[in-house]
């Protein structure tokens, strides 16, 4: 037995009251002279008292259990909140992706992406093209026949934010200047819109007409001369966008609102 173990045994026996005779005398002397032994004896006594207090131990155990349970629950709550946030972010990302893809599909910037688009037609032929056109945002389509007329009008006049922001802004080409029409034009159904431009360089010109959902309705390619008349007799009430291109570069974007106006 080492001296340390012996000392510990003496302390235990002293606190249990089983130390007697000379041993007790020697230990008391040691207690008086050595503060460390005094400290250890006191701690041992206190520990035994603490261990003997079963009710207090049971109470501390109960407090501990409640605390641990609460911590576990709070950790679970944090995990739950994190999971909900992750789901929200994922759904948001998916929605943004879907939205941007839809918008991209609705507004193809490049001309003719393999889709059949009506080419330039003479004035009398334009009428038949527009009368047969049925897109969801276009009044008169199958889809819209079921909708009340006021709603149809509001749908047909709802601007497309992406194009709306570009009206009058896009001026990438220096190959020509547009003289007519103004970027934002309001006409009565059946009016003729005249496009007039001034060429500064040789370039192949084309004009695209889109509805308010960004669907390309019509395209005129290889324009010659310095003007073109666009008849709107078959156009339904609604908002249309046009895009003037020189060698596939956008010169400018404008809009035409076809609506019955008081004369």
């Amino acid at each position, binding site marked *: 037995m080492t001296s340390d173990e012996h000392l510990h045994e003496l302390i235990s026996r002293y606190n249990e009251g089983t130390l007697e005779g000379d041993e007790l005398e020697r230990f008391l002397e040691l207690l008086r002279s050595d503060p460390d032994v005094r400290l250890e004896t006191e701690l041992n006594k206190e*520990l035994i008292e*603490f261990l003997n207090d079963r009710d*207090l131990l049971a109470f501390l155990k109960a407090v*501990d259990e409640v605390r641990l349970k609460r911590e576990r629950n709070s950790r679970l709550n944090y995990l739950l909140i994190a999971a909900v946030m992750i789901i929200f972010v994922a759904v948001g990302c998916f929605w943004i992706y879907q939205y941007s893809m839809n918008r991209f599909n609705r507004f193809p910037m490049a001309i003719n992406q393999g889709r059949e688009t009506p080419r330039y037609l003479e004035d009398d032929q334009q009428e038949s093209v527009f009368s047969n056109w049925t897109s969801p945002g276009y009044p008169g389509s199958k889809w819209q026949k079921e909708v009340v007329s006021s709603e149809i009008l509001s749908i047909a006049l709802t601007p497309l934010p992406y194009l709306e922001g570009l009206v009058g802004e896009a001026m990438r080409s220096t190959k020509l200047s547009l003289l007519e029409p103004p970027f934002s034009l309001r006409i009565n159904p059946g009016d003729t819109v005249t496009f007039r431009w001034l060429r500064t360089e040789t370039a192949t010109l084309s004009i695209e007409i889109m509805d308010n959902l960004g669907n390309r309705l019509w395209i005129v390619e290889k324009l010659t001369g310095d003007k073109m008349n666009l008849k709107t007799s078959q156009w339904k009430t609604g908002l249309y966008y046009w895009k003037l291109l020189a060698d596939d570069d956008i010169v400018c974007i404008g809009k035409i609102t076809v609506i019955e106006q008081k004369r």
Partner: protein
Amino acid sequence: MALYSDSKIIDGIRESNHGVINFLYKDYRPLVRAFVRKNSGTIQDADDVFQDGLEALYLRCRDQELILTCALRSYFYSVCRNIWFQRLERKQRLTYYPDLMVNDSSEKYHGRDSLTKEQKLARHALFWKYFKTLPENCQQILSMYIDKVPCKKVAEKLGFTGENYAKVRKSMCVKLFQKRIMKDPEYLNCIDHDQ
């Protein structure tokens, strides 16, 4: 969450009722946290004070008749407030007089008697902390020892070779428990330096 009257809380504390303790955590702890944080403490300090406050309340309910002259919540708040102020005072004292352990006298301290209870609670928290970290068989031996199970039976139950070995093991466990506590710096902070 169930609401408890003061007398129900006191009874619940006496019986170590989980529901009542949970209620105290939910209802009383925010007060203690706010108070301790406002008085230069951390959340951890606040939680320690709250647990010590619970123990103080338990001991008070168990050992004496608790006659309340105010709401239990206010009483508990003042218990925790006293614990925190005494703890702050003790910590401050140790910071200002780091050589206290070497030479000190009781005259140097004012309000020393009032520190004793707080120190006792802090020591109990320390004891409980280290009791939980003891090896499983040590906890078992000590629990049996607390239950005053004879060493012979302890040896039989735990598969020891004999009664003497059970005594040795118990002694080793107490020693291990004691050593772990003495190594903790917090223990040095909450011992009675006047001994």
